[in-house]
């Protein structure tokens, strides 16, 4: 007899009792149950809004995103809750800030007493839930919620070559940790001396055989957890998956591009080399990586080329979704877990800094059958995705959720609302935040609080995004009253978040 999970059983029972089986079949064939629409949450890793021409970037990096935006709602002030994958993804899936879910460290996890508070579980048994992340760190978090998903896809899914071992175990989270994050990790020497050597030798031999003539910088691949893939094949696989899913469905899809290593298609390689665009020069930051401006500029060029590649494949993907009828019966949410920073001596996102490019992510939502464009300028945050998805699915929103329903989808435009982005990768997960950077967004202002980084001394920066989006003029000393008000509010919020850990 086939293995029927508790979730499957409840679904069958619910269908039988309510006589919904017929309706399910019909919606599976492309119909739309408006009270339970299909929802696709498609996330690009390290995609900053600031380098997309859709959001005003001078380089034409995103003509296809622009085309898609003509049929979508575009959020212009959407910030990620974190500045790298772990906190960004965890906030998106749990609807709370990093100081609550505590997935704050490199390869960190959501606190174990909160595992029931996730988007898959909250959608309930009538939703057919799928989770897929190409990147290791997002997979670790996703695997924590595996029991609430109908389909958990391996990072290796849709790839041309991969060596991921832990996903084959029912105990996925710790198998991934023990095998892929430790014994066979690509970063340092693998901790498995014999099988690790064999595995790496085999991987390189196989990777060498992949034709790479279309990719001057090599075939796209992930970093420390080896997955080699072609973006067009990944998108083709996704289209097929979405087309064949039974309704109503919710899919979380986390794609690795445009995360480094930047691997553009040949037609986009070098496309910006002579365009004479130079971003404003910014001084090196004390907490930056110390790269000189030339290296940072070259990093930006490579990133922009890869963005153009991602945009090209995204355009094909959206066309295919349209042709398959998926866009007629599904919400398609496009966003990112965090951005990328090419300024102040930094390139990438492994930094404690929280300047706009690293937390300003794109957010575009296409509603089923939508044919016009809407622009929303109220500040929103990745914690808002969970309540919005629940709202779209007709589900109640739990009171512990820190997010609000997005404007345009049942929520109000609140320009004075405070939202936060948190970086605390050097802080123990279950202790008060003593080494962290926190950005607080309120109205047109943004306060950045560096806690414990400068030899224990606190440091603040205040920027007016209305007049200084490049964050060149620190107003902290000139706007004392405003700075104090924002500081006090931030302290109060932080103290409340830290309270339960202070007593441990």
């Amino acid at each position, binding site marked *: 007899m086939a293995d029927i999970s508790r979730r499957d059983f409840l679904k069958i029972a619910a269908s039988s009792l309510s006589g919904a089986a017929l309706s399910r079949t019909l919606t599976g064939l492309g119909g739309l149950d408006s009270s339970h629409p299909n929802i696709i949450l498609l996330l690009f890793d390290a995609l900053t809004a600031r380098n997309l021409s859709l959001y005003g970037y001078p380089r034409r990096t995103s003509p296809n995103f622009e085309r898609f935006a003509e049929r979508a709602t575009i959020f212009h002030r959407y910030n990620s809750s974190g500045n790298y994958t772990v906190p960004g993804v965890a906030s998106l899936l749990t609807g709370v800030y990093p100081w609550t879910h*505590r*997935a*704050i*460290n*490199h390869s*960190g*996890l959501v606190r*174990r007493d909160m595992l029931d508070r996730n988007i898959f579980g909250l959608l309930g048994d009538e939703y057919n839930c799928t989770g897929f992340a190409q990147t290791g760190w997002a997979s670790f978090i996703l695997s924590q919620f595996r029991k609430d998903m109908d389909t958990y896809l391996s990072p290796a899914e849709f790839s041309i070559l991969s060596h991921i071992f832990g996903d084959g*175990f*029912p*105990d996925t989270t*710790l*198998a991934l*940790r*023990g*095998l892929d994050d*430790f*014994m066979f990790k690509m970063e*340092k*020497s*693998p*901790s*498995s*001396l*014999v*099988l*690790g*050597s064999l595995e*790496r030798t085999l991987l*390189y031999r196989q*990777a*060498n055989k992949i034709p790479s003539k279309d990719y001057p910088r*090599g075939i796209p691949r992930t970093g420390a957890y080896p997955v080699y893939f072609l973006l067009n094949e990944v998108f083709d696989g996704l289209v097929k998956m979405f087309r064949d899913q039974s309704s109503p469905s919710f899919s979380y899809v986390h794609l690795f591009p445009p995360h480094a290593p930047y691997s553009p298609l040949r037609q986009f390689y070098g496309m910006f080399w002579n365009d004479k665009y130079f971003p404003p020069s910014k001084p090196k930051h004390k907490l930056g990586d110390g790269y000189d401006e030339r290296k940072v500029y070259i990093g930006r060029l490579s990133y922009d080329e890869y963005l153009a590649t991602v945009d090209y494949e995204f355009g094909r993907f959206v066309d295919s979704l349209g042709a398959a009828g998926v866009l007629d019966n599904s919400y398609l949410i496009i966003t990112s877990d965090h951005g990328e920073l090419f300024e102040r001596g930094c390139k990438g996102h492994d930094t404690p800094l929280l300047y706009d490019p690293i937390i300003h992510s794109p957010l575009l939502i296409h509603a089923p059958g939508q044919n016009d464009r809407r622009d929303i300028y109220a500040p929103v945050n990745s914690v808002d995705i969970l309540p919005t998805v629940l709202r779209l699915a007709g589900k109640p929103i739990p009171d512990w959720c820190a997010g609000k329903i997005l404007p345009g989808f049942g929520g109000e435009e609140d320009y004075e609302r405070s939202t936060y982005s948190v970086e605390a990768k050097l*802080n*123990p*997960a*279950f202790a008060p935040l003593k080494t962290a950077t926190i950005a607080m967004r309120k109205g047109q202002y943004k306060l950045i609080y560096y806690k414990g980084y400068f030899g224990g001394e606190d440091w603040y920066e205040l920027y007016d995004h209305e007049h200084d989006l490049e964050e060149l003029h620190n107003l902290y000393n000139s706007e004392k009253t405003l700075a104090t008000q924002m500081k006090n509010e931030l302290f109060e919020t932080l103290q409340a978040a830290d309270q339960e850990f202070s007593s441990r």
Partner: protein
Amino acid sequence: MGLMGWKSWFTSRLPSMGQLTAVYGVIVLMVYGWTIYWYLWKLPSWLYFLTLGELLVTFSYAMIVNFIESLLILLVPVLLGLLLPHHWFRERFVAQGVVLVVLLLIALMNYLNVITGLQDFPPGLGGKVLAAIIVIAFLIFLVGRIELLSKVVGEIGNRATIFIYIFLPISVLSIFVVLIRNVLRF
């Protein structure tokens, strides 16, 4: 040669249990030692967000991999003993076996050191591998010829058996832990 003949040929060429454990002890020391070294290197960051239970389960997965790879490495001297003439290798199985596995594992460590951080094999790797094989073969030959060296290495092997008593029970326990986690989903 009949089945019985093959069996007797095979068993006559297999090392004794005492010889096997001496060589295996050295393998266990190096293979498990390498993993534990990296585990301790990782531990401070994992302590930030993993619970004690999670750390132990993670360690269990590692120990199982170590168990498998220690048996794989043991196969190398055993196969050599089967294939090579008696006086070439099996006569001084412990000493020559210990030298073989130690050098082989050091070569693997060096290999990993060379290819870590790269995305491809470095140039000239084939020549280096060949050189390593020649050096290992020469040193095995040497240890078989010098009585004192042979004795010292053999003693080291005998003393290393203690590590089997430490790591084999840990490996068995680890297998149980992983089975419980995956089959009983506990």
